[in-house]
């Protein structure tokens, strides 16, 4: 009898321990109010079905005080949940397919804008990538929290440039001269002075100025300006918080299919070099950006940005004003010599 009690008590201790670990890993945030917690719901890219949204509302009314807070990173958080109701809350959310997000030192739910599915500006499917990458990497343990973000275009509404590992869509335009009527709308639409008109009244593009927004493609009435390639710019080391850190731009035109390998490689590098409690931006500063660039090079090849790229008007305009000058210089990591498709100053139709 006694031994049975002890077993139960051990089990209960283990359960409490497991519960504490679950709390930390599981997206349950202690509130200022004693024994009340906030339950953070998983919503990659801030998207969910209306059924899940309804279930979150029901749970908030039944177990909380009827309020929900939308976190800065797109997660609906149910407030004022009693610790004792946790299992019921998790079960009822789970019945509607609503999973719980996470906190702590791990890969967090990915954020994203609307992307190309329905946002007229988007070039890449940031919603799909946010869902897939969350499925693949969510919860993986890292030296400190690790946030990822996908933006559909260079406008970067969800702030990929402020994220541990951020991606924004980019498009390289090319001209089909036969279709061009020299109406000049593309030249007018360019906000970066990358397009001019040549002697034959055809648009001429300055590679070093073009920031890959795709406005010229969208404005062209005759489909004469079309996408040549679409991919992602990659930024690493960004964060906000009390000691904000701007991300390093490290690659461009990375195709969708290389994105998982970029994340995998970055996580591996971070786990190898990062100290516990150190965000990747600080690890990069301590260990050196070239160590990371070398690792990334094996995945992205010529898409890796070189020191010369950052001196081009396009990167100086794509990036925070003045910040590039404060960067440690990017070294030679073998083969990265800047853009693969153009020499400095190269212009083409």
């Amino acid at each position, binding site marked *: 009898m006694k031994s049975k009690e002890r077993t139960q008590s051990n089990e209960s201790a283990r359960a409490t321990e497991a519960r504490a670990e679950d709390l930390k890993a599981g997206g349950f945030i202690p509130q200022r109010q004693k024994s009340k917690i906030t339950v953070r719901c998983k919503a990659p890219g801030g998207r969910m079905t209306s059924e899940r949204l309804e279930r979150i509302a029901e749970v908030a009314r039944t177990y909380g005080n009827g309020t929900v807070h939308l976190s800065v990173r797109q997660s609906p958080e149910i407030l004022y949940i009693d610790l004792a109701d946790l299992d019921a809350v998790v079960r009822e959310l789970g019945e509607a397919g609503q999973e719980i997000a996470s906190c702590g030192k791990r890969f967090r739910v990915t954020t994203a804008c609307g992307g190309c599915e329905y946002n*007229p500006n988007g070039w890449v499917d940031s919603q799909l990538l946010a869902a897939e990458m969350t499925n693949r990497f969510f919860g993986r343990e890292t030296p400190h929290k690790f946030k990822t973000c996908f933006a559909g275009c260079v406008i970067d509404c969800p702030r990929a440039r402020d994220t541990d590992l951020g991606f924004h869509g980019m498009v390289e335009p090319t001209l089909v001269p036969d279709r061009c*009527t020299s*109406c000049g*709308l593309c030249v*007018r*639409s360019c906000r970066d002075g990358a397009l001019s008109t040549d002697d034959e009244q055809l648009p001429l593009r300055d590679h070093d100025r073009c920031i890959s927004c795709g*406005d010229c493609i*969208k*404005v*062209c*009435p*005759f*489909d004469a300006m079309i996408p040549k390639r679409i991919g992602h710019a990659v930024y690493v080391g960004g964060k906000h918080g009390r000691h904000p850190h701007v991300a390093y731009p490290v690659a461009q035109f990375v195709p969708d299919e290389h994105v998982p390998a970029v994340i995998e490689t970055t996580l591996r590098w971070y786990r190898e070099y990062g100290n516990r409690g150190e965000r990747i931006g600080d690890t990069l500063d301590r260990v050196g950006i070239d160590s990371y660039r070398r690792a990334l090079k094996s995945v992205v090849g010529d898409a890796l940005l070189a020191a010369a790229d950052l001196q081009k008007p396009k990167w100086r305009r794509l990036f925070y004003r003045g910040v590039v000058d404060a960067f440690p210089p990017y070294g030679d990591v073998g083969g990265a010599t800047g853009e693969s498709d153009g020499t400095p100053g190269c212009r083409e139709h």
Partner: protein
Amino acid sequence: MEHQAVESIDLRGTPCPLNWVKTKLRLEGMGAGELLEVLLDDGDAILNVPRSVKSEGHRIIAVSPVDSGFRLVIERA
């Protein structure tokens, strides 16, 4: 190349997105393959309206400068 439009609408002075709404309404009252001439301001109007026209599936067959703006010829889808 001069295109003879069936209908014409002068939207110079009409701001975005009202210029597109009026273009769309006019197109809806027309038959497939018919041509609509639209006069638009330079600036936002000429950068935005063609984009919307294209995304609705209509075809733009001419763009040319006119007094204080542009002339657009649209073939209704």
